[in-house]
């Protein structure tokens, strides 16, 4: 195992993040504040409580998930797409590194960045609502797993993308709708029965539900199922990445 390489990639990517520190922090803080104003205050004044939790607090896990998933995906996809775009990928391909090491470096950095922003949103939300975290360890575990799995997805998108438009396409067309429809801002028990069934096909439901459980102890689906879903998703992404490196798809001729 080439640990020096993993660490080098990781630090190199993290430095990119810290170079744009202000943007990295200001943008999620601002958008979270806006969500609290619009959803928490405007809608929250009519809904009051969901499953025994104030609406403002109820949306916090969903908000964190929304940002973390989008950030992990876009960070990882950009991280690997950029070397492809400017041609520096030659160095990764000619270096004594395995696919696992490249993935560990890029995905690790992307997941860390997303996690960092997730924590900032959590801190921001303390200024708006009262929240207690019922299962802090589980919360950290869910957050970490989500960051990693979506960074893996982002890595795949970055390898697949042929231009900057494609890089934005999946996060915009797939992830954002899935997160919005995955119970970020509502409990799926609030939906009509038919939509409850349809929603269960959305993998994001399981992640948000599990994450919300770690905050409030209540969930839309069982915690075991949530864990299984996230493990399945991570496994599928890893398998796909393994196949990419084995075949050289879109990177090695």
């Amino acid at each position, binding site marked *: 195992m*080439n640990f*020096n*390489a993993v*660490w*080098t*990639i990781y*630090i*190199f990517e993290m*430095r*990119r993040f810290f*170079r744009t520190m202000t943007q990295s922090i200001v943008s999620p803080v601002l958008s979270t504040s806006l969500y609290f104003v619009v959803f928490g205050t405007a809608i929250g004044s009519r809904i009051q409580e969901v499953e025994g939790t104030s609406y403002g607090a109820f949306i916090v896990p969903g908000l964190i998930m929304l940002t973390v998933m989008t950030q992990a995906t876009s960070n990882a996809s950009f991280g690997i797409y*950029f*070397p492809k775009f*400017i*041609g*520096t990928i*030659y*160095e*990764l*391909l*000619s*270096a*004594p*590194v*395995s696919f696992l090491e490249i993935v560990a470096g890029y995905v690790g950095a992307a997941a860390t960045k997303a996690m960092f922003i997730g924590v900032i949103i959590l801190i921001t939300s303390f200024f708006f609502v009262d929240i207690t975290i019922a299962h802090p360890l589980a919360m950290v575990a869910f957050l970490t797993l989500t960051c990693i799995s979506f960074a893996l997805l982002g890595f795949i998108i970055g390898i697949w993308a042929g231009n900057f438009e494609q890089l934005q396409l999946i996060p915009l067309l797939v992830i954002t709708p899935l997160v919005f429809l995955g119970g970020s801002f509502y409990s799926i028990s609030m939906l009509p029965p038919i939509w409850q069934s349809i929603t269960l096909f959305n993998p994001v439901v399981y992640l948000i539900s599990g994450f919300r459980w770690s905050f409030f102890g209540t969930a839309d689906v069982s915690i075991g199922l949530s864990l299984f879903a996230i493990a399945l998703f991570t496994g599928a992404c890893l398998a796909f990445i393994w196949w990419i490196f084995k075949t*050289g798809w879109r990177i*090695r*001729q």
Partner: protein
Amino acid sequence: MPAIVSVQNLRKAYAGGFEALKSVNLDIEDGEILALLGPNGAGKTTLISTICGITVPTSGSITVGGHDTQTDFRAARKLIGLVPQEINLEPFETVFSTVSFSRGLFGKPRDDAKVEAILKQLSLHDKKDNKIMMLSGGMKRRVLIAKALAHEPQVLFLDEPTAGVDVELRKDMWDVVAGLKASGVTIILTTHYIEEAEAIADRIGVISKGEILLVQDKADLMAQMGRKQIQIELAQAVDDIPSALKSYALERADDGLSLIYSYDTTGERTGITTLLNDLQKAGLQMKDLQTRQSSLEDIFVDLVKETA
């Protein structure tokens, strides 16, 4: 000398069916500078890319320092440094951090002193905190070399290091290469400039249409390249070469208006002066005179014809 890089029956065919390399065999000796000459599209870059691991071979085997590049890729790649043809660099990074990145990527622990020494060797030290985008084209090429040397490789591949580079910088680059050779690095460079190969290589390989046509000691090849022709245009056509000039092995042009004399520029005597004297003695009146050197293209054409 032992071969540090050994390429055996290497073939590379792309998905569309294009065969970029056709059963290439090549041994690169430890410590030498090998120049791979070939026209555009000959397969030079594909050969280098395949040795370095960027391209996957269709068949055949490559060993670097005795390590197979497929089955023992880590050990093989650690020995290799690659300077690509295109200037591929992260524009927003500093010189130091990008070179340091390369070192870590190849598994070496961080060593700022080593990186600084490499930057000094390439006259880049005063630019170490500059962003890549602030550098000139020549400096960027040096950064690419510094990156390739960051992990102290034994074999350095330079893919067209002087393509599109001005004369002064090209000479500068040759000095860099000579310095690297002196430090014990084996260097393989591709080029389509014969002067470049002539200036710095120990051996020259000629590649065309995915085949290595020859690999020869520079001195031998230059002797072959050193043949020149002189064309003597006559005021009046001759039907036959005068007997006084028979010893010169002249060729008569079809119209009889010119004579062609081949000579070796590397020889002590070219025989031109005596030929011109004898020409006058034989009563032939000279109208014009021009010389022609066999070019790399001629050699290519001849070689390709021979192998066809």
